[in-house]
């Protein structure tokens, strides 16, 4: 009897170890050319060079009946979406690994940026707004710096996106790097009861001077909610998410 129990525990441990995880967007690259033209000019003199690209996760498509049920369940809850999300917070744990390389002969300072995309909205900051996740990196000529955006940080990105869409009056306060909106009492009233999970993201580079930079990324996905499409199966073709421009109070 004890032997059979031990065997069962061992089997469970093995299955737990072998939980589904996959890598997506492997080798996806964003490049900024040394002779690029500025994307924005702020205050008539400050140049902002920004390049990014959208990365969509392979999500399994819900059935029409499921979507109808999600729409029906949204009645009376008044979420900031037409229906409840198919992918909710915690269904997919995401981790983004990146490497930023200075391919030029001059030192450069660049910001790696990431903004979340859920089933309904995509965060689209202006030139003076904060990105949902950003990290400033100084690079010597030819240098390559790698890093990881952790599952916790990307969970915060999902929560922040749902919160700002739900009417938080200061988006920068919500998405600021020091802000933990799920813990901040000033933000709590705007936290929706159902938080959509990320189904994609925009990653990119931002600088104040043109430089030859290359950003390479990959996304690790751990599927806890059976939402990731099986390899080889068709993924959910979502309509393009509505861009959400941050709401920032006017400075006095």
């Amino acid at each position: 009897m004890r032997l059979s129990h031990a065997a069962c525990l061992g089997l469970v441990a093995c299955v737990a170890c072998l939980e589904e995880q996959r890598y997506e967007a492997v080798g996806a690259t964003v490049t900024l050319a040394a002779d690029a033209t500025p994307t924005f000019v702020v205050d008539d003199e400050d140049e902002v060079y920004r390049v990014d690209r959208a990365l969509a996760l392979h999500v399994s498509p819900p059935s029409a009946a499921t979507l109808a049920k999600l729409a029906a369940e949204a009645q009376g809850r008044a979420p900031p979406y037409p229906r409840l999300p198919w992918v909710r917070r915690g269904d997919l744990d995401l981790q983004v690994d990146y490497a930023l390389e200075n391919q030029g002969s001059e030192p450069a300072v660049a910001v790696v940026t990431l903004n979340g995309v859920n089933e309904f909205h995509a965060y689209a900051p202006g030139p003076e707004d904060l990105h949902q996740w950003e990290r400033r990196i100084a690079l010597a000529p030819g240098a390559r710096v790698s890093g990881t955006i952790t599952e916790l940080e990307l969970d915060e990105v999902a929560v922040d996106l749902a919160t700002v869409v739900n009417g938080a009056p200061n988006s920068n306060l919500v998405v600021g790097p020091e802000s933990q909106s799920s813990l901040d009492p000033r933000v709590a009233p705007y936290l929706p009861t159902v938080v959509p999970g990320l189904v994609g993201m925009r990653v990119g580079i931002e600088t104040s001077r043109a430089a030859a930079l290359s950003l390479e990324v990959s996304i690790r996905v751990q599927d806890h909610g059976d939402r990731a499409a099986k390899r080889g199966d068709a993924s959910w073709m979502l309509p393009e998410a509505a861009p959400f421009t941050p709401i920032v109070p006017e400075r006095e």
Partner: protein
Amino acid sequence: MAGRLALALAAALALALPAHARADEGDAADGLVPGGPGEEPIDPTRLDVARLPLEPARARGLTRDLYDRGLFVEAQLGALTYVGDAREVSHPGPRLAIAVGYELTRWLALLVEAEASMHQTHNRPPPRRTSYELVGGAGGVRLSVPIDARFALWGEGLFGVVWSSADVLRALGLPDAARAGLSYGGELGFDYHLPSRHHAIGLLGGARMLPSLAREGGYTLAAYGACTLHYVF
């Protein structure tokens, strides 16, 4: 009356003493002293084998026939490394295997085994360096050649399947690594029987081709070594 009794005793002593003296002479000739230590002839009907004289193992005729034969289980603990494509993105790692088999004869056995090894990737991020498991199962035939009563050399051929749980290897350019793939190869090793009917220990080295862990047109060979503990039921 008393004089006649004394005379009779004296006559009896005179007759008995020569006979006793003759008996002592006979015992001394055999080298035995009554009541003293001496060599006792072996009685084959007695179970008291501890009284048998000690003999060296060779003289007793130690043979492999004294060991149990039949169903066995074998644990293997060692390390596995790659040669070829997977070596470019993986470090060597620890390997554990459990084999169950049946010895049809002293020199021929059939077995199946389950094995697992863990490895760290080494690559230029992204993706960040991580670890993954390689698990598999195989069946094979083992041929043993006894060197003496305790040592035996053996070789075996194995054919099975192998699978990597995480698809990080796919992300590193080995597209079929996350699918079940074939593995085939062989092992060489030796056994040393402990002073027991059931137990043996040993060392082995093996090599296995893993086509599913290779790039197109490339190859990956898993090379491994292990200590073994062998138990025959």
